[in-house]
């Protein structure tokens, strides 16, 4: 079970969180013309990376904040975690 550093609450076990997918996906702006390809990429198409991956988790049994977690999908190593509004350098 992963041990995730919630930037709001501190180190907590994985069972307090729910997974939210790739954090690098950006929703197209509202009311903007979007091509089929762009929209498909946003809704469906995901890379299945082996290695370092920036992903979303929500601390559902804690502060309910969505956070970003930089994790290695092969080793499960977690490098850094970020608040929702933090820029990932």
């Amino acid at each position: 079970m992963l041990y995730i550093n919630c930037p709001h609450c501190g180190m907590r076990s994985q069972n307090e969180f729910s997974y939210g997918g790739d954090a690098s996906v950006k929703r197209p702006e509202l009311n903007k013309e979007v091509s089929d390809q762009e929209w498909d990429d946003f809704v469906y198409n995901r890379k299945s990376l082996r290695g370092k991956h920036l992903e979303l988790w929500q601390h559902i049994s804690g502060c309910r904040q969505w956070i970003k977690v930089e994790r290695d999908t092969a080793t499960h190593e977690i490098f850094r975690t970020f608040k929702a509004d933090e820029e990932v350098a």
Partner: protein
Amino acid sequence: MTQAFRIKNVGLINRDKKLSFKFNGTTYFGFEGDTLASALLANGVHLVGRSFKYHRPRGFFGAGVDEPYAVVQLYRNSETEPNIKATEQELFEGLEAKSVNCWPSVNFDIGAINNFLKIFLPAGFYYKTFMWPKSFWYRIYEPFIRKAAGLGVASTKHDKERYEHKYEYCDLLIAGSGPSGLASAYAAAKNGAKVILAEDKPRFGGSLLTSDVNIGNQSGKDWAEGIIAELKTMPNVVVKNRSQIFGYYDHNMLVMSEKVSDHLPETKKYHPNKRLWYIRAKEVLISSGSIERPIVFGNNDTPGVMLSSAAKEYLKVYGVLVGRKPLVFTNNDSGYETAIEFKKHGVDPVVLDSRKNPESEIIDEAKNLGINMKNSYVVVAAQGYKKVKYADIASISEDKKKLGKIESIQCDCICVSGFWTPTIHLASQSGNKTKFKEEIDAFVPGQSKQNEITLGAANGVFSLDETLKTSFKAGSELSKKITENDNEIPIPNVVEKKSSQHDRFWCVPLPKGKNYKRFLDFQNDVAVSDVEIALREGYRSIEHVKRYTTLGMATDQGKTSNLNGLQLVSEIENKVVPAVGHTTFRPPYTPVSIGAIVGREVGKHSRPTRKSPMHEWHEKNNAVFVDAGVWLRPRYYKRGNENLFEASKREAKNVRTNVGVCDVTTLGKIDVKGPDAAELLNRVYTNSWLKLPVGKARYGVMLREDGIVMDDGTTTRISESHYHMTTTTAQAANVLSHLEYYLQLVWPELNVNVVSTTEQWAGAAIAGPKSRDLLQKLFPNSDVSNEGLPFMGYMEGDLFGVKARIFRISFSGELAYEVNVESDYGNFMWEKIIEVGEEFNIQPYGTEALSTLRIEMGHVAGSELDGRTIPYDNALEGLVSKKKDFIGKRSLQRSAFTAENRQRIVGVVPLDKQTSIPEGSHLVKDDKAPLPNSKLGHISASCWSVEHDNPFSLAILKDGKKMIGQKLFAMSPLKNKVIPVEIVSSHYVDPKGERVRS
């Protein structure tokens, strides 16, 4: 029965407490502190079971967790548990156990015929034989194999034992309380670190309990006792016996199973049977020791053949002699230690050593005691069927290929030692890259992936002096990093006898003309010949060899067999062992009760049960409940002998004619507050929200980004920047997360807060033509007329002194209202509604009537919003704004979603107006068409229309709009029904929706 093999004044058992127990129906006696194995051996019982495949007689091979044979069916406190290792099960008064794998009895077992058919049962036998004819599999092969396979029998009764889970955090978790575990725990504890020390056996001390050593001028055993006693007094230390750390998971999470009650005749009141610990440790110190490995020879599974360390443990811990004429067969000095213990207790052993000229302090001691020793000698085969009677022995050439003349030697047990295998399971599970250590012919931990370190014998270090030094140091350094204390601890003097290099010899060649079975894996009956077949048939990877032969796949997971298997493969393949590599170690290290893994989450406790504030009233009024998500809701209120059908029909009819009241507390409720609340709703819902006035409610549908309907519900504007959103019961949690996702990540600029208020409000839906009259009596000071409170209107009212929210919304299609009060007043509200409603013939109605009412009205619910439908499918496209953007809008342009013949909701009535259509039935054009008969749609919900008094269903049907008036068939292969039906409008009652506005 006497304990003929028990010797006086030896061992750690409590001889003041005699215990009686039964094995295979015979009563025996043992002492407190015995295991079932030691007590049986004390009584001279060596035959405990039959082997898995050949049904050969089997006895005891080890004295602990590594035991492959002595697996019994245990009976305790009128319960039974299979696959219990007799070597681990502590004796208690009244214990009962039986042998497994035998019928009719362990002494006379019909399955033993397999032993004579063994030539027909080689590796891969099952794969090759039961392939054809295909029809034989279900009828003949599978039932036969099922009966023949498996060890014990699981109880079919409900397990009344209780199991607990516990979460714990510590600085240092130490697995194993042998010398290295004790030393490192002590050093870390002295530095103030929070330490958990786990020992799987009942007694602490590991090898110190049986070895002949001195630490700080005390015996090893006394030193261990002293350390444990001191650790137990320290507040920063948790010391646990009978606790096996069986799994090492990610991020230093380890799981430990604590046997709290298995050693007692019955579980104490308020105590669990087992406790599963989830431990998150900053550092893990693995001091799990090592397991002696066997040398492979002919008939090496005969009862009486056992590990020499086990024989020593039975003697020193339990005061039990495993034989009176022991033969010790060894390739290292450990065998001599066992021989010396025999000699000291008046038994004359013979030692066969495969080495030519071994010399060491231990061997000198054996020599001085006058023990009969033969060098360059091996056991060729054990002889005897149910017990060793004699052994065929021979000298062996230096290259270990040629045997000398076979001689016979009388013996009643053969104690075998093929050196030691470090227990690296936990390290390997943690991701550690293990490496092969030539000097000990075994794998040891190498590069760590997580914060773990392995010490002592588990790390291939067999010198006590070195083990203590490294362990004190590791304990102190690891704890210093965490606590920043550095209390120096003097390392005690160690007196131990030096041993010499072991012989790299593990398998005795077959003598000419003999075809003895030489077993590698004792529990799964895998012999040398089976591995040879696997390799001959082309299996190369050790993982494939394992699966083809089942080597190492039994409940003991090859603790005594893996390394010898590797040696054999490497020898045949002419590779070095590290090139062959070992199979993956996976948790659990030892079998763990399913009950312990499940813990308290059993039956009704497997998820929370939520009850509305009116639950007790429902109970008192004969409600029959149904699970709705995590909630319990009344399905119907039983009157007299009514069944579900009759009661729900009565309740629904009463809503259509008078007035009914339904508990709708379970609906999800979310408070949406903030200056941008309207904007958020406008983006979340498909319809437009910016112009909704205060005091008005609106129905909304929300989509996922892929265009599929996620949820629906009404949202009411309570005040300028405050909205009350409702969701379906099932989707409440998901909708909240959905809103939080957009507010926190996508549109953080929106100034809105959302919070769940589901449990803060109790809700009652009052529906029916007389509902306004009732409402007026409930709120005499409010104007609830059609003008004062129009359809989709909202007001606050005073319910006999309690503040209430009144919504004019309807799910039933009737004139209807929903009243909310704070949860604590829920029951008060409910009772008032019932009391005041009496004159209007009010009746409570449950979810079944609720469904009936909505189905015949054509209102969609979870069965239509099933994660596969878009607004059009549910005839909700009128709610999809063309002007503004919202979540999922772009997806609605997908070609499949705009197709001409897109599926759509319709009504379905059976032609005979009698037969109810099972939910899930498929709609087809031709009921006689050959399979696969492609479906046009499916029945999503069915009811008995109270308005028309005939069955009515909703369906999602391809090209639904054009199908009205057509005749189709509803087919349910599950219920074996074919029903001719007619497609009608989904609005079966009040198609113009006049009632809700009346």
